[in-house]
């Protein structure tokens, strides 16, 4: 029914998915300007201060983390009724790339916009009288067609493991709800204590699965926080030089003294539209230096979280240890091996490296050799990871629905542990909201299933 709610504000990425020079994210509805205001980073001017049919340039920031600049955008303002949909519309034109537009969309959703339903912009345009009446049937066909396509896509997406999770959550909450409703409508007992325990355990079970599902939204993390690329390797192989080279400026202090880098140095970087967090770590070696030891253990922790690891080695000094590490590294999915200082390497070493030519990127940072190859390899790895995650991750729409459902479930749980009386009606009100939300994903209708569930589960009498 959301399709008929003209009073909320909808958002969607307007440009086709895939690489492109720019992406357009569109916002339509009464709160468009207010939401857009929250995204402009100072000292940019707020969209609501601009007249209709104007545009301006501003940095946009993550509203939850105002220091994180998402991108530079051209912002176009169309005030109601002079817009495509007839509502207030704000259009963001940002840099192209698969990640940027979705990060912006997330920020808009976090500020109160709702993901648009299929065909909803056109539908609003029609309902607001912006399209010719003769087009009515055309629009109607469009809505139905969009909706069918969307449901096929939704089915695709929730096939397999995700639909299994969602069914699990739904069934547990529905059963808890049946306990509560059965007690309200059919129980002669004044204070059915076992209702608490049974419902509580079912709700907690559902909450656990729900949390897992929300956590599986790894792609969301990558989008929000960027891909974590960690440079590691023995001391003095040129890790900090690589960081500086990739960043394009001197961020880390580079010396020929092993152990110069003790802290983790992290910088943001955009590579072909992907937000990257690039981290340089302390070289891993045995040391007596307390400070360096701490740095090394931090580096190990960071490696565990890394999406991409660049393992560096010195081509001029390949040890047996290096060789062993090399063998394990090339079997790992997230590790790239970069052999630096090829300019200084001996012929036998180069011959050794060439055995692994498929897996090792060779280069000499000082001479600017191998950088482009390394960048390409990093991007290939990121893309393969994101598409792998994509087939599993839940969509923005599902994420926002499940997150709202989770809030309702938490509110229901909060009402449960009262001593001698309990407002079962309030608990049931939250459970019902949660079920209705999840029902918009799996197509279950609460009112049709509740009684079915009660009567199959309980022998109701008097």
């Amino acid at each position, binding site marked *: 029914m959301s399709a*008929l709610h003209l009073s909320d504000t909808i958002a969607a990425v307007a440009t086709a998915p895939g690489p492109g020079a720019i992406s357009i994210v569109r916002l339509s509805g009464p709160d468009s300007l207010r939401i857009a205001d929250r995204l402009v980073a100072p000292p940019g001017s707020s969209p609501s201060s601009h007249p209709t049919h104007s545009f301006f340039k501003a940095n946009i920031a993550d509203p939850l983390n105002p220091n994180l600049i998402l991108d530079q955008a051209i912002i176009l303002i169309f005030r109601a009724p002079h817009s495509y949909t007839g509502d207030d519309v704000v259009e963001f034109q940002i840099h192209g790339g698969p990640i940027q537009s979705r990060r912006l969309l997330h920020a808009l959703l976090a500020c109160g916009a709702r993901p648009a339903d299929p065909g909803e912009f056109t539908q609003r345009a029609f309902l607001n009288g912006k399209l010719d009446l003769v087009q009515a049937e055309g629009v109607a066909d469009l809505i139905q067609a969009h909706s069918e396509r969307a449901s096929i896509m939704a089915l695709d997406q929730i096939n397999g493991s995700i639909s299994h999770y969602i069914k699990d959550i739904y069934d547990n909450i529905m059963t808890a709800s049946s306990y509560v409703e059965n007690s309200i409508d059919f129980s002669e007992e004044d204070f059915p204590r076992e209702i608490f325990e049974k419902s509580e355990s079912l709700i907690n079970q559902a909450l656990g699965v729900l949390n897992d599902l929300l956590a599986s939204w790894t792609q969301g993390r990558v989008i929000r926080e960027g891909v974590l690329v960690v440079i590691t390797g023995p001391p003095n192989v040129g890790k900090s030089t690589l960081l500086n080279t990739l960043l394009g400026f001197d961020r880390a202090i580079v010396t020929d003294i092993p152990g110069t880098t003790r802290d983790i140095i992290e910088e943001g970087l955009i590579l072909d539209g992907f937000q990257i967090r690039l981290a340089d770590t302390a070289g891993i070696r045995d040391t007596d230096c307390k400070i360096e030891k701490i740095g090394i253990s931090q580096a190990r922790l960071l490696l565990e979280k890394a999406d991409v690891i660049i393992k560096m080695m010195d081509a001029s000094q390949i040890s047996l240890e290096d060789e062993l590490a090399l063998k394990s590294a090339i079997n790992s999915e997230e590790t790239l091996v970069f052999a630096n200082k090829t300019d200084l390497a001996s012929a036998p070493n180069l011959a050794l490296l060439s055995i692994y030519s498929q897996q090792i990127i060779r280069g000499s940072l000082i001479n600017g050799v191998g950088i482009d190859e390394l960048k390409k390899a990093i991007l290939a790895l990121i893309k393969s990871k994101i598409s792998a995650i994509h087939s599993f991750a839940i969509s923005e729409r599902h994420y926002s629905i499940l997150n709202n459902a989770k809030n309702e479930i938490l509110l229901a749980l909060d009402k449960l542990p009262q001593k001698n009386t309990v407002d079962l009606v309030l608990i049931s009100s939250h459970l019902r909201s949660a079920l209705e939300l999840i029902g918009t994903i799996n197509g279950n209708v609460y009112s049709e299933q509740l009684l079915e569930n009660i009567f199959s589960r309980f022998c109701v009498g008097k």
Partner: protein
Amino acid sequence: MTPTFQIIVIGAGHAGCEAALVAARMGMKTALITMDRQAVARMSCNPSIGGIAKSHIVFEIDQLGGEMGKNTDFTGIQFKTLNTKKGPAVQALRAQCDKPAYSNRMLAVLLNTTNLTIIESNVREISTSNGKIDGVILADLSFIKGIAVIITTGTYLNGLIHIGKQSFPGGRIGEQSANHLSSSLKTLGFRLGRLKTGTPPRLHKNSIDLRSMTIQPGDEPPPFFSNEVRQLFHVEHKIEYERKFHVEQSNPLRPWYPGSCQMPCYLTHTTAITHSIIKDHLSESALYGGSISGTGVRYCPSIEDKIVKFGNKECHHVFIEPEGRDVAEIYPNGTSCSLPEKIQIEMIRSIPGLERAEFINWAYAIEYDYSDPTQLSHSLETKKIEHLYFAGQINGTSGYEEAAGQGIMAGINATLKIRGENPIIISRSEGYIGVLIDDLVTKGTEEPYRMFSSRAEHRLLLRQDNTRSRMRRFSERVGIHPPEYHAETLHQEALIAAEMVRLEKTFHSQVSLLQWLRRPETRYSDLPDIDPALPPEIIPQIEVAAKYAGYIVREGDLIARMKRLDDRAIPADFDYATVAALRMEAREKLARIRPRDLGQAARIPGVSPADLAVLAVLLRKI
């Protein structure tokens, strides 16, 4: 000369009595046709009125000027508040009634009502001319002229009673069925379906050993359904009233002091022997032996159903309920079945305390015709024939309260239509009667429809305590309660609003009284600073307003959202068949039910949000 009435009501059960009374009280010349005047408002199954969600309906009927609440209060022999610890929205009353007293009092009320004529006869046919009602034809072929007809025939249409392998026609045990009328409705083009229900045996009270059972007394002081009895027989007045009330003053209208001398119910249970008797003879039951097809009523399962479907339960409750003060019959609630007589005896006597039980009546199952209620509009008028109304069990409902709720609405709306006024339609957010009727006319029903609180999505707002305010604007239009009554309701609403402001602004040890009252288990009387002048009947509303504040706002938002759909009317002649953009299933359902607005369309099972969006677009085009 042909007798002429404005409104003719066929059937004097719970729906028919309310329909006839409200019509007559609203000034219509009304006829109430019944086969047997001694059987008016007969409680043909359980001896109780009310229960969760059902009692809300009784409260609403009372506020609209109906009789059920008063009749229960005056003839009740046990009163109880249910769900006392599960939250105020779902608190409800239930009363055990004296069955003969209930019927007798209703008959006395009918006889004392001006404009109302009781006709003892059997209706053969509904008479129409040019698609409009013109009257009814009785069994003796005599004709009664009328402008509007309300059919409230309960389980009588083609009623077929089953006991074991035996089956015979009947409306209730010992009463004939109405078969001509059923054919007459088919001839007029109505879709009829078949439903089934059942009732337990009746046992002789002197044959029952209560010693092994758990006693279940009523509440003291007794809670009442009707405003009149609550006002007149309030605890404080009790002594004064009892002094004035003498036994010789007892009459059908006031058989005893309301709520006095309550009678208990008793609780016993089935045993392993009961279960094995039923299992061994399942094939002899009408329900399981094939005489009746389909499933039984899920919320009131027969004992066969309980044993088959919940086989792992070791025992089931059996409530022993009296059917009246001077009545021999005992109602063993929970033992309804369609087993043969011999097996019924065996089965009942395997229950502790019923070892020597003597039978007065057999348990039986009954099948009857009902009319698909989606053929009605929200006023309960049939879409096919003007001035023809259906109310009660004929619409596929179950329960006295559901029947009475429809009856009063049919009576009101038939009257308003004759007067040329718009019908009264209670919305789902205003009353359980609204939920009941909207469910019936929108979704239809496949099993006897009973009201549950979970059917009401806005049940936080639909409470017993605020019924008077919820029903005020409808009750004003009906006009049975005097204007002063409504003025008092308004005054109470103002008092509540003022008290809410005072509670918010008065602080005690840095805590506002409102916050104080929001604490769990805190009652208004626990506050350090109360207004002793407030009428006690509004206190529950103040407590609820404090405790549910956030939820009431949330409900309000939901209702406002839905209202935008409810406000988008769909023309009655809208041609769904030609809208290619609607899915086929939606096209068929919409064309059959003909929703009056987008809100109702949205509630039809099988109509998707996309279908609704398509409709919205096309409505804009019109």
